[in-house]
């Protein structure tokens, strides 16, 4: 992206000045280097989002942003229902409530290294992954609906995981206002055998260890220490969320015509929050959000079982679970007034500050854990939300962000070569698709440390620890 088109606010904060039909400015969080690497489509898509009715303050863009569907990936926008605000399919995406769960253990690198290969093999066998994989829970009869309305707590009632896990999931693992009547029969059919599956693409499960502590006080609050083994995984609402996105693209295209909304790109289709179409879409999104929480709860249970198979005395606890493709009702301060807004985060992670009542008791005074997954073979980061009022509705980045197409990555690398190279560095890769590994080669992503440093420097969130992978399972 051309920096000449932007107004510099500070070293890591830039503005797309309001022009034409834009109702607010665009605001890009990024260093010169990262912004220069962003495609021009990010500028265009941010400007388009800024035209949507009821948008508040600015259309925000995170440092890992790239060209998306309607919204840029890494886009954040908040809408006021009292100001004609909308809900948009592009602002949530196809993989509704895709997110990351991290589990802490009482194991260290030294404990795990001698049995690392057994541990990774066990986790690979236990956690279904890859195209066409099926979960061990078959959702027959009314259970199909229970998981949509009752999310992770319902899964725990079925014997998958502990009540303590729920304390450390965003929203306690269930969101109200989820009515399965707003989910199509096709979507329901597709969800039946997928709860507890990882999927493919950029989804993964990693065995990691803490290799750097930046903030000792918060690390202790989060229960993190040097060389500690962490299990993290990235996945979402699987085909259910994809089908809801697909179904509502059509329905909201009709609504956009009906309400004469200014849509500059087809995937920005939306509906007023206070309209039958908007209410139905938001309710369907809530169903998929609950399904994703449930999906990650089953995987957490399977991962815990896997760790305990190899290390029977290991204590595996949920550190946190947070989504990054979401639309949620939240309270935010704007010009000194607290407003209830519909916050869309498309490839952006919620990062509530330490004063928020929504945080689990033990994290009050520390901030919300923010889980930022790296590309395969590189570091991931755990941050704590700071939530400055000047920030982006308590949001930060969600990953490193791609810089190279999958086609180009496959031309440059072979899956087998990547597995061998990472193996030489002590990282075990297990996969259902070698071609998938080539597409996800570490070199096809931005350097994650540069992305996270921008977040830290702007005060959106504070770095707490860095973790490095020892083993990675890809779908």
């Amino acid at each position, binding site marked *: 992206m051309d920096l000449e088109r932007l107004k510099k606010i500070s070293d890591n904060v830039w503005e797309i000045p309001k022009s034409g039909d834009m109702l607010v400015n665009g605001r890009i969080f990024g260093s010169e280097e990262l912004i220069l690497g962003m495609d021009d489509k990010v500028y265009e898509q941010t400007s388009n989002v800024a035209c949507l009715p009821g948008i508040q303050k600015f259309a925000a863009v995170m440092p890992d942003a790239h060209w998306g569907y309607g919204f840029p990936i890494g886009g954040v926008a908040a809408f006021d229902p009292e100001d004609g605000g909308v809900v948009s399919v592009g602002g949530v995406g*196809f993989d509704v409530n895709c997110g990351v769960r991290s589990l802490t253990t009482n194991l260290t690198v030294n404990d795990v290294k001698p049995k690392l290969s057994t541990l990774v093999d066990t986790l690979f066998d236990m956690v279904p992954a890859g195209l*066409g994989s099926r979960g061990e829970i078959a959702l027959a009869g009314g259970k199909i609906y229970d998981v949509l309305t009752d999310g992770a707590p319902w899964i725990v009632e079925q014997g998958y995981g502990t009540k303590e896990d729920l304390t450390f999931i965003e929203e306690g693992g269930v969101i109200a206002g989820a009515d399965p009547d707003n989910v199509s029969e096709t979507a329901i059919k597709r969800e039946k055998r997928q709860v507890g599956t990882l999927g493919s693409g950029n989804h993964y499960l990693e065995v990691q260890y803490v290799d750097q502590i930046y903030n000792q006080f918060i690390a202790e609050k989060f229960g993190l220490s040097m060389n500690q083994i962490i299990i993290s995984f990235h996945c979402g609402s699987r085909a259910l969320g994809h089908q809801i*996105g697909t179904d509502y693209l*059509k329905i909201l295209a009709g609504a956009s015509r009906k309400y004469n909304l200014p849509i500059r*790109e087809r*995937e920005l289709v939306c509906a007023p929050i206070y309209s039958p179409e908007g209410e139905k879409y938001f309710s369907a999104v809530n169903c998929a959000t609950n399904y994703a929480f449930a999906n990650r709860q089953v995987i957490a249970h399977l991962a815990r079982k896997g760790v305990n198979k190899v290390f029977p005395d290991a204590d595996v606890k949920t550190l946190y679970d947070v989504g990054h493709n979401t639309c949620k009702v939240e309270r935010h301060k704007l010009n000194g007034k607290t407003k209830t807004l519909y916050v869309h985060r498309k490839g952006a992670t919620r990062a509530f500050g330490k004063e928020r009542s929504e945080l689990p008791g033990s994290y009050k005074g520390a901030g919300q854990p923010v889980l930022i997954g790296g590309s395969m073979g590189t570091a991931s980061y755990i941050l704590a939300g700071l939530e400055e009022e000047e920030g982006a509705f308590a949001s930060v980045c969600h990953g490193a962000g791609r810089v190279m*197409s999958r086609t180009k990555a496959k031309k440059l690398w072979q899956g087998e070569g990547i597995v061998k190279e990472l193996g030489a560095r002590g990282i075990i890769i297990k996969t*259902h698709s070698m071609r998938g590994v080539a597409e996800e080669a570490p070199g096809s992503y931005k350097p994650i440390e540069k992305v996270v440093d921008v977040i830290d420097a702007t005060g959106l969130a504070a770095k707490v620890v860095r973790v490095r992978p020892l083993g990675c399972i890809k779908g």
Partner: protein
Amino acid sequence: MAASFDYFEHVADIGVIGIGDTLAEAFVGGAQGLFNVMVDIDQVDGTRCIDITCSAFDIQELYIEWLNTLLSEADINGMAFCRFTIDQLTENTLHGHAFGETIDAIKHHIKTEVKGATYSMLSIEKVNDNFVVKCVVDV
């Protein structure tokens, strides 16, 4: 020429191109390209047939609907598709068939799951004597 497919570059996902003498053939080519992202379609036997019916607001929406219906039918039936036919195609409606078999990770050399066909870079054009349809699929 028969239906064929190709790909174009996209930073995060994959651009699929369907080509044919007729629009229906181009739609078929796009479907082949879509499934070839997920499996080696040459390794799939078309022993089972699924009936496909779609409707949409316009021809562009219809193409996306066709691809997304194929994805959902493959998923619901636990299948990989390799061959497609379209016997009726209007501006707003489509009827056709998808042929394939139960998905087999080893036999079909599974690759990357596609979440959905999107409107990004969507185009339907006549180039010389061919129909060419393009869109990005989200993986």
